[in-house]
């Protein structure tokens, strides 16, 4: 972060005690919108105020409230946050290794692995969303980032959507995949957690857990969540084919699989 961003008009930001910024440093200003299951009226307004206060905000100010239907009221509330966070002690788990672009990845694999890297990917179980996994694998990629099909020295298999875990694992074994790429988009009622967990369990049951790199991705997936679920890596929004391949190829090297294209030998 450049120093210009950490100074404001007349005060120095204390990065060990950060709070929201409205128009004056440390004013803590936050806007919130929510609904309470209470009838519209003065009591509703007061309830919202007290709730926001309990949430840790000073000066709660109900800027707008409106009946949604009998028994439900919608609020827009401002408050001043009191809590602070020590920015300097923040640690975010990140996928390890250097990120290279498409061409660099292809060359790197040629030089360092000396064989093709094979991956299989799918949107698994009940999930019918393909655009995420297609963005990673299909030739045309997404937002100007080409997919793995365009990479040199990479052989990707895209199984599409609603693929049962069993089928994806069978394919990985059939083609001796270095990595399995799992996509999950629907997260309602934590269905993605259920599906992703099922995948890990089946991979373990098959005795494959340390013989294949297991990565997942999707709009609500972070590397941290992926690791918690037992994956090697996780990729969320803004991550493209080059991110995944940079990771996978370096991991293949780390695991010493250069001369082990067959799963059985790993």
């Amino acid at each position: 972060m450049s120093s210009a961003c950490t100074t404001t008009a007349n005060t120095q930001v204390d990065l060990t005690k950060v709070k929201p910024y409205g128009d004056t440093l440390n004013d803590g200003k936050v806007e919130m919108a929510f609904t309470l299951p209470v009838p519209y009226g003065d009591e509703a307004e007061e309830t919202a105020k007290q709730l926001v206060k309990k949430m840790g905000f000073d000066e709660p100010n109900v800027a707008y409230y409106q009946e949604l239907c009998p028994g439900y009221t919608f609020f827009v509330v401002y408050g001043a946050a009191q809590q602070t966070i020590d920015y300097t002690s923040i640690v975010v788990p990140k996928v390890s290794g250097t990120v290279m672009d498409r061409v660099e990845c292809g060359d790197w694999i040629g030089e360092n692995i000396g064989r093709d890297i094979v991956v299989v990917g799918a949107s698994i179980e009940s999930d019918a969303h393909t655009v995420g996994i297609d963005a990673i694998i299909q030739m045309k990629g997404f937002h100007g980032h080409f997919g793995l099909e365009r990479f040199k020295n990479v052989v990707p298999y895209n199984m599409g959507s609603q693929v049962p875990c069993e089928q994806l694992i069978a394919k990985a074994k059939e083609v001796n995949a270095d990595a399995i790429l799992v996509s999950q988009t629907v997260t309602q009622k934590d269905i993605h957690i259920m599906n992703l967990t099922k995948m890990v369990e089946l991979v373990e049951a098959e005795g494959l857990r340390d013989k294949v790199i297991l990565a997942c991705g999707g709009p609500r997936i972070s590397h941290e969540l992926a690791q918690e679920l037992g994956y090697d890596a996780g990729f969320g929004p803004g991550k493209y084919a080059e991110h995944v391949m940079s990771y996978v190829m370096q991991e293949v090297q780390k695991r010493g699989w250069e001369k082990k294209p067959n799963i059985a030998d790993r």
Partner: protein
Amino acid sequence: MKSKLNLDQKVVDSARAHAAHIARDMQDFIERHTTVSTERTILRFLGIDGVDDVDNPLPNVVVDQIKEAGGLPTGVAYWIGNAMVQTGKNPQEIAEEVGAGKLEITKLPTCTQEEAKQAIMPIVHETLKKIKAQTAKREELIGRLGEGREPYKYVIVATGNIYEDVLQAQAAARQGADIIAVIRTTAQSLLDYVPFGATTEGFGGTYATQENFRIMRKALDEVGEEIGRYIRLCNYSSGMCMPEIAAMGALERLDVMLNDAIYGILFRDINMQRTIVDQFMSRVIIGYCGIIFNSGEDNYLTTDDAYEAGHTVTSSQFINEAFALLANIKEEQMGLGHAFEMDPSIEDGFLYELAQATLTREVFPKARLKYMPPTKFMTGNIFKGHVQDALFNLIAVWTNQSLQLLGMLTEAIHTPHMHDRYLSIENAEYVFNNARHLGDEIEFKEGGIIQSRAQDVIKKADALLAEIEEEGLFSTIEKGKFGGVKRPKDGGHGLEGVSIKGDNYFNPFIPMMLGGEI
């Protein structure tokens, strides 16, 4: 009305003629085949409902037994008629005996086709009367209560729990919604049966069951009486049980149903032969009972680019129209779909959206066009999202769209929260009211961006339709012309449920619903 787009009517007529030939060609295939779901639909119309002791729906149990015995080419109508003649029991009793393992329907002595027909025809007439009564009831309620003004404000509920859905739906109606769509749970489209009873657990939506339809219909009728406006109910006649769900919709007075000749093939990987046959009976039912169908062209733009693939939407609309005409559906019931899905970063993107929406209206002047909101380019920036939705609403009122599926500012994050719906209804009401007669005031510059874009789209649609006519619909889909998705003719789910019709096959409902006799 004078064309604002300066369209060449010859191109429009040519596109329409190609689509008619494409559908006609498919119709020959359709008429030679039936499917397990088509047959289950007949059973439902004959009054068979409920489940056996392991929760298999009785229509499935009966069809499966007949199919295993190789009796499907004759059609279940015959087998039930025959069983009635032989046992003196009614269809439900017969189905229960099959379910209890007490009856093998194809092992009974057999009567003539004529005798079987005679046995079931009173029930057929009874069912048609029930459906007509529902249609009349809709007309009566609209007449008495009135209805919202087009573009109808159409919102979804998707809690997974039908009772929670009721609460959300009634709230939305009170806030101004005209149509409530109950989104179906993830993956119901691939179930080859319709679950039974009221349900409270679903992912991203709620099971479509006849009981759930009934519960929601009642709730919307109640709130409609209270606010003095008829509230339309929408669900999905799509997936592996397309015609069965249409039947449930007809019986429970749904008003709008998602129903597309191609969507299931492309987006759910349902076998194309299965879907094409299934969609026919579902559309005949829809046509018969006055439901507005919604086709799913908007979805192509989630997997393909809206600027590049605008003409595939128009082409598909022509095809959906042509299939609808073969199923005797009135133009006023054709909710042809399209969407506001261009990348918001394109310069003049709004003009191209306006061109496409105006084109769709001019080419299908009487259709109840269903206009879908931005979804793919909605992000976690809900503030920008609300603006995207406002632009979408502006085009809708400007170009006289009929069913406006309201965009939600939180589209990229979750299914709508109660106040998301409120904000989107407020957004639509503001824009619709403020710009009500904009379309009457504004004409487009001759040869300008909007006219040129529309002319280009219709020309490309005509060319694509000519190509499809030449090639056949099945192989066009195999080549990935729609939504950039390729599907093989013998691949996907549900092919095993398609059967050739035998010489003595009959389905009493299709001819009766098409206005003839059997």
